[in-house]
């Protein structure tokens, strides 16, 4: 046996919270947010919070494929709308309520993500981005021509009159469900980032051939990422028909979802669990404020200006600014 001493470990990195502790903290924060909104008790407060929260889920979901694995998905709206139309179709066919519709939407989104992955993940860069954009166009065309879910006219979804205790109305229930989904999506995203899966996704984002040579099954990991990301994006879209009691293809497949899903992680900091959360809270709040003070048409203009500013001045997003240049 060699008597050579084992090399010393590197200077200790900052102690990081375990997965279990993070989930508990996220649940507590989620409960506090839900209680604060309940205390506020305003219909507009619920609506605005639901708007911001659905973007937290959407941006966080997009980041799992786009940020961790480096595959830019321009088809976020397709997954989001797939969730919304799953609610419409399942509500009409089986009379299901919101929660089972969210679960089914996640299944549909996951399957759509897996299928998209199988078809497109041998593409890279702009080619992959264009393929996902095409997915959105194809899916929208299908929905426009699908009369069962209202086709191009759209579909009305009536909110149930009765709401369970302790909610004071359906808006409160919807908002609380979105709080739970946002908290779960952030916790899932952070768990992935700090896990073996996150390490592998980061490796393939940096260099796919080198990752393969290091034993990383890149195709399998990309399929896992597209499935999880797709499931979460579709789940984010599932409550949409209940939000305005009406959904139509141009809204559900709207460019705002595709652009925001990319802009929010980019502004907050791509490839980190906290970046999409920060970006979504900032950008979605800003858009809500602009909607009530200037006009709803100003939304995408604001996103564009903020995005150009960040790309030029802080390409690593807000998280990158705080971490400093490594």
């Amino acid at each position, binding site marked *: 046996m060699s008597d050579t001493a084992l*090399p010393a470990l590197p*200077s200790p990195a900052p102690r990081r919270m375990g997965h279990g502790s993070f989930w508990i903290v996220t649940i507590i924060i989620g409960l506090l947010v839900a209680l604060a909104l309940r205390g506020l008790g305003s219909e507009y407060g619920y609506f605005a919070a639901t708007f911001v929260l659905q973007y937290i889920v959407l941006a966080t979901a997009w980041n799992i494929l786009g940020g961790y694995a480096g595959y830019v998905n321009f088809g976020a709206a397709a997954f989001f709308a797939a969730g919304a139309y799953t609610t419409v179709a399942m509500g009409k066919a089986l009379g299901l309520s919101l929660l089972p519709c969210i679960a089914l939407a996640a299944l549909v989104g996951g399957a759509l993500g897996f299928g998209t992955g199988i078809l497109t993940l041998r593409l890279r860069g702009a080619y992959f981005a264009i393929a996902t954009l095409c997915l959105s166009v194809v899916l929208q065309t299908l929905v426009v021509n699908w009369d069962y879910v209202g086709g191009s006219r759209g579909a009305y979804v009536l909110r149930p009159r009765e709401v369970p205790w302790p909610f004071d109305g359906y808006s409160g229930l919807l908002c609380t469900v979105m709080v739970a989904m946002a908290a779960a999506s952030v916790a899932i995203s952070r768990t992935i980032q700090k896990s073996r899966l996150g390490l592998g996704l980061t*490796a393939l984002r940096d260099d796919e*051939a080198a990752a393969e*040579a290091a034993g990383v099954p890149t195709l399998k990991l990309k399929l896992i990422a597209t499935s999880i990301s797709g499931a979460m994006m579709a789940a984010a879209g599932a409550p949409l028909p209940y939000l305005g009691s009406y959904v139509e293809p141009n809204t559900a497949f709207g460019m705002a979802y595709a652009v925001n899903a990319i802009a929010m992680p980019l502004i907050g900091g791509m490839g980190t669990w906290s970046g999409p959360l920060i970006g979504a809270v900032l950008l979605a709040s800003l858009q809500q404020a602009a909607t009530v003070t200037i006009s709803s048409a100003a939304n995408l203009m604001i996103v564009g200006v903020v995005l150009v500013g960040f790309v030029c001045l802080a390409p690593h997003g807000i998280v990158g600014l705080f971490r400093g240049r490594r």
Partner: protein
Amino acid sequence: MSEIVLRAEGVGKRFGGFTALSGVDLEVRAGERLGLIGPNGSGKSTFTNCLAGAFPSHDGAFTFKGQKLAGLKSHERARRGLARTFQLPRPFRGMTVIDNIRVPLAYAGRDAATDERAMECLESVELAAKANRMPKELTQVELRRLELARATALKPELLIADEAMAGLSHAEVDQILALLFRLNEAGTTIIMIEHVMRAVTEFSQRLAVLVAGKKVADGEPRAVLSMPEVEEAYLGR
């Protein structure tokens, strides 16, 4: 005589109408140090890529530790103990040096995925002090060492060092050579693909020469280097 760890039989590869490799046979024994040389464009890197599974060969077959490699992807070959380095260092630039080592430890499953093991890999290439640095803070020779550390984290039976010394100074070449000798002494079979002839002759127990995609020589280094066809390939007629 030690067992044959790698056998290439009639390996061929075409890119469109261009034949990059044609009928290459090669045997490598366990613990051997083989130098694979040839002028630019002779097919050395194509051979490496076919062996490592980066792309499929059109003809022939590779047998590694008695098992055919056909149909296995790069990561499956890596998990079986076939490691490679790249001509240009390809670190995972978004993660620290030690995380670069954690990737093969976590995925290849050939060794304990612990911080201690990652540090041992870095220590073996004298990079332990830079474990928490980012790859962009490393010098060229340190990046080469990181490539070797990442490959050794796979605990490979066979390592293909693809031009691991390209662009390095005399002293830096000696450093990498010393590392490769240590790895070999620890039991790793090494195929060195190199243009630095001093390193090749010092390191290799046997030389194989590729010219225009065909193997033209295979044998004891000095004898091979004095063969007329090898001189002609390097110096011209």
